[in-house]
């Protein structure tokens, strides 16, 4: 969806994230990452880096390769991997379950000393092995210890990934799954699909199909300046706009709308701020 190239570098103050296109095949990602670092290597001469693979499916060799590309082409040192607990549950990190597509990889430099270790985070040993076969086994041991950690502490971390901004019209046939919040600064047209593990905010007209809280978060919300879409999902609930005109909420005329889950069904009401009490929404259950 982002058309500026496979590897994007996003700087936010002192933190830097490498965002890699989720539709790009892994070998393209690896090649682009290598090319980017060899061109811009001077910029990344020093520092520790955390690789956040979120809930993505990456084989162990692929993790090891990313680590060796980053360390081989820059002065950066990969000190940790982040994993979402869900990806461990489903065993997606198994080598055998190698996916056709590599999902986005977000790597961000982290102030390692300042951040407390989260349940799904692992610090690499200082003497990280150099050869790739050994790297693989290092990654495997990380995964093993991660699983052990996760079993003890099953809480979900929603803020693993940053919000994704889509700055142009999201058109029919385009689809996106982001493991965080999604903000669209334009319309979402009919036939487009967006799944977000967090909230979905559309600063335009939402006519496509969206699923907020796609990882099972029923507290996620959908906010749109105009909400003509008649079907969408939040968490495990599906909303279908009432067909009778009477029961439909007053839309565009009354400004932005919010869709949320109350008493096990999706309701839609005029948006009155993130922390307003919503209890007069129109139920979207067909």
């Amino acid at each position, binding site marked *: 969806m982002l*058309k500026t190239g496979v590897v994007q570098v996003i700087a936010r103050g002192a933190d830097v994230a490498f965002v890699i296109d989720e539709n790009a095949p892994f070998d393209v990602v690896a090649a682009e990452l290598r090319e980017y670092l060899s061109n811009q290597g001077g910029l990344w001469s020093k520092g520790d880096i955390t690789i956040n693979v979120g809930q993505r499916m990456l084989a162990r060799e692929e993790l090891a390769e990313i680590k060796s590309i980053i360390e081989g082409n820059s002065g950066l040192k990969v000190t940790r991997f982040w994993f979402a607990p869900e990806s461990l549950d489903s065993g997606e990190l198994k080598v055998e379950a190698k996916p056709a597509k590599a999902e986005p990889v977000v790597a961000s430099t982290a102030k390692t000393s300042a951040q407390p270790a989260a349940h799904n985070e692992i610090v690499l040993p200082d003497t990280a092995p150099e050869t790739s076969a050994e790297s693989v086994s290092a990654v495997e041991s990380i995964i093993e210890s991660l699983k052990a950690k996760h079993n003890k502490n099953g809480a979900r971390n929603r803020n693993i990934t940053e919000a994704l901004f889509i700055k142009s019209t999201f*058109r029919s046939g385009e689809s996106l799954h982001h493991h965080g919040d999604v903000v669209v600064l334009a319309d979402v047209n009919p036939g487009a699909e967006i799944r977000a593990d967090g909230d979905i905010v559309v600063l335009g007209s939402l*006519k496509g199909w969206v699923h907020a809280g796609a990882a099972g978060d029923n507290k996620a919300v959908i906010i749109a300046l105009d909400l003509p879409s*008649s079907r969408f999902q939040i968490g495990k609930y599906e909303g279908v706009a009432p067909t009778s005109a009477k029961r439909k909420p007053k839309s565009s005329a009354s400004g932005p709308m919010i869709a949320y889950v109350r008493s096990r069904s999706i309701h839609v009401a005029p948006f009155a701020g993130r922390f307003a009490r919503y209890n007069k929404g129109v139920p979207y259950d067909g």
Partner: protein
Amino acid sequence: MTGRTIVITSGKGGVGKTTATANIGTGLAMRGHRVVVVDTDIGLRNLDVIMGLENRIVYDLVNVIEGECKLSQAMISDKHDYELYLIPAAQTRDKNSITPEQLREMCADLEKEFDYVLIDCPAGIEQGFKNATAAAQEAIIVTTPEVSAIRDADRVIGLLESSGLHRPKLIINRIAAEMVKRGDMMDQKDVESLLAVEVIGLVPADEHTVVASNRGIPVVHNPKSSAGGAFLRIAARVDGEDVPLMSMEPKTGLFSKFKGMVGMNGRAYSHA
């Protein structure tokens, strides 16, 4: 001199891609440019019929690509006194007979000789679409004010943008002013707000277009007809001239304006 290669596409079939190609090509030639139109609808060729050149075809696009003839041998000169040429599609082959790279190469050769290379794209988003769009630097989308055509146009714009053809221009074809007035058809604003691209032309539904196509004389040869005039203005806009869009709205009385304001002219369509 380097020419511009423009693909004319739509996604949906039957919205007027071929008619638009023939008319814009003719319009640009009437403005004194050297123009070649390429029919890439292999297996379902039509552009030659609309331009009235059907019985002059000897060699076609696939012959050129496969090296059976020279590029110049496949170019059919228009009947009229303009610098306008047609490269027809093969009728007995299919879309897989050529590759995007081959067409891109051929268009690069044509750009050296011509001011405009217009590519008539087949309907759909399969191989034929990929061939046609790979060769172009610019795109014109043709749509009609119907939800199905607009949905397909939306999809095509997304595909074009992801393949690097940004900012396509839009032609809204077959606008029936009377239906727009009654609220039974989308108007320019509705289409524009849905597709979020620049409109380069509004073509009214005009029976002259059908008659002209049947006779093999593009309607642009009759600039007094409403569609002919519209295509001539589109050619001028493609050529970089700043021609304002003509209003398609019939003159509205005070009462219908009032009805529009209070939302009484109920719309028979839905965007969603």
